[in-house]
């Protein structure tokens, strides 16, 4: 039986609002991951300054953020390094949602007559970033059973980056989906038409500022539906909302 490396380490499960000092705890479990470090080193060697950031969760996963112009080179480099299995391409919109991100979302505050909140800043995830939109893709090496997540920043004024469909044929459909859901275009893509939506559909549904209609006509439904976990008394842990 295997366990997560993080198992038993994180103990502030429901109390993210309370500041806990976990620095000392984290120091005790500094692991290294030689295999993934080596992959990262080789990628950095091949791509040079195009590698903008990286993050390794030891024993688990590797994130590499590359320059937008080197997006295709990154795929080719990884493919020649044995990462031949294409997993997916997608994107993330890091804009904190004006709609329905939480139970005290802006529009519910308006309904209940409370003061509107100041919008939260955009915070990118692992491997950092500078832009609202990031394209994310994953390749996998079947021989070593290791994957790489690639990320690339896509600036708002030019939502485009080179296509992967020439390197990995499977990227074709994924890029079509990303284009219609986020509005990010892929230069050189042979057939960038809608995958799911009608051709005359307006807007990009997976952007955070695209309102989810069902959410707009009903206030936050989540909190009343959270069921108690078996064997846990109501007063125990968790916050009483």
């Amino acid at each position, binding site marked *: *039986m*295997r*366990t*997560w490396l*993080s*198992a038993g*380490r994180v*103990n502030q*499960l*429901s109390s*993210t609002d309370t500041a806990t000092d976990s620095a000392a705890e984290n120091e005790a479990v500094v692991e290294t991951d030689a295999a993934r470090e080596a992959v990262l080193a080789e990628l950095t060697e091949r791509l040079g300054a195009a590698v903008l950031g990286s993050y390794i969760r030891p024993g688990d*996963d590797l994130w590499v953020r590359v320059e937008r112009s080197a997006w295709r080179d990154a795929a080719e480099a990884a493919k020649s390094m044995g990462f*031949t*299995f*294409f*997993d*997916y391409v*997608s994107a*993330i*919109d890091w804009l*904190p*949602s004006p*709609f*329905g*991100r*939480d139970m005290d979302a802006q529009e519910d505050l308006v309904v209940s007559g409370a003061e509107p909140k100041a919008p939260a800043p955009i*915070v990118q*995830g*692992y491997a950092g970033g500078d832009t609202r939109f990031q394209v994310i893709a*994953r390749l996998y090496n*079947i021989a070593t*059973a290791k*994957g790489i*997540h690639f990320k690339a920043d896509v600036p708002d004024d030019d939502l485009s980056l080179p296509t992967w469909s020439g390197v*990995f*044929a*499977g990227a074709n*459909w994924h890029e079509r989906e990303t284009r219609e859901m986020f509005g990010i275009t892929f230069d050189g893509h042979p057939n960038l038409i*809608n*995958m*799911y*939506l009608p051709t005359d559909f307006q807007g990009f*549904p*997976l952007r955070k500022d*695209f309102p*989810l209609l*069902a*959410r707009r006509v009903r206030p936050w439904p*989540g*909190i009343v539906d*959270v*069921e*108690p*976990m*078996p064997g*846990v008394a*109501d007063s125990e*842990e*968790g916050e009483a*909302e």
Partner: protein
Amino acid sequence: MTAVSDPSQLSDLIAEATDTRVNLDFESEGMTLNMGPQHPATHGTLRIVAKLDGEQVISAEPICGYMHRGYEKIVEVRTYPQVNALINRIDWLGSFANEVPFILAAEKLMGVEAPPRAQWIRTILFEMSRVANISLFLGDFGLQLGGMTAGFYAFRDREHVLNMIESATGGRFHPNFDRIGGLKDDLPKGWIADSHVAMDKLLAFCDEMEDLLVGNEIFQSRTRGIGVIPADIALNYGLSGANLRASGIDWDLRRDGCPPGLVYDQADWKVWTHPDGDCFARTWVRLQETREAAKIVKQLLDTIPAGPVMAKVPRIIKVPEGEAYVATENPLGEMGYYIASKGDLVPFRVKIRSASFNNISILPWVARGAYVPDLISILGSLYFILGDIDR
């Protein structure tokens, strides 16, 4: 020259050509054949626009979106336990298997680990949904190729597994049984003995299918050498599961990249591959997989440890900030969830990497040059579920 479809007109033309000793170059204009959206070979509503030259397919383009339900958007306003109920509906034939990678990804971010008993039962139910899913494939594929009997046998024997899933979880198709930190409930009384019986029935069903379907001469002639996918093309398109193993690639996430929380290393089983990469290979690998899955279930049933089925988790689940990707070997192939969390009640972004989406994206490549009846074999043997493509 216009297309000639009327045989008498054709013979007139040929006669005329012979008479005038002109070497007529017959070029046909081509024909567009629309398959679906409703077609027995599509497991949902998929439309395929095939351009034909005579009986041969020049290009086949799947048109998706008839069943797009926007899960990736709606999960952004649903709490983690609620998401669990939604994602049951992605691959509706093996629903329990959909829940597991999502729950595992959330557990990974939270650093929670299910107790051993929950991990065992999780693995058992996971494999049971594989048996239920693929046994239907075997019957349904026979049905698509004109062998009705296999379909009835499959529906009959799948019921044994669904009954077991139902008696443990309360739902035949949509169990919603997996929880962050364990399972909703323990097993009911007598379930283990009943499951042994059900798995024995399924093993017998596999033998039956081997004779009835895979051993059938007509079946073989309709599948052997049809729709061959070489290994490098399969990897290029991101094919996974039995489709990849039928192309000779020995890779199974249950063995090679099994995330913590599933106990496949506690059972003795094999990964089957086939070198041919054709429709027959894909069916054959799936048949063997059903057998192996039944064997895994039987072995794990005997070794379920005692103890709780739920770890201590907070009443209101907030997943700490971070990103995680967990993929498991689902009945259809690799299914993974990329969760980006901001420490809220709801996930910030969930990318659902479903197996069928990649598996069916190879269709334009593999269908080129195939004959129209073979298109059905290819579609059927790639085995996709529409909910798994459209999400």
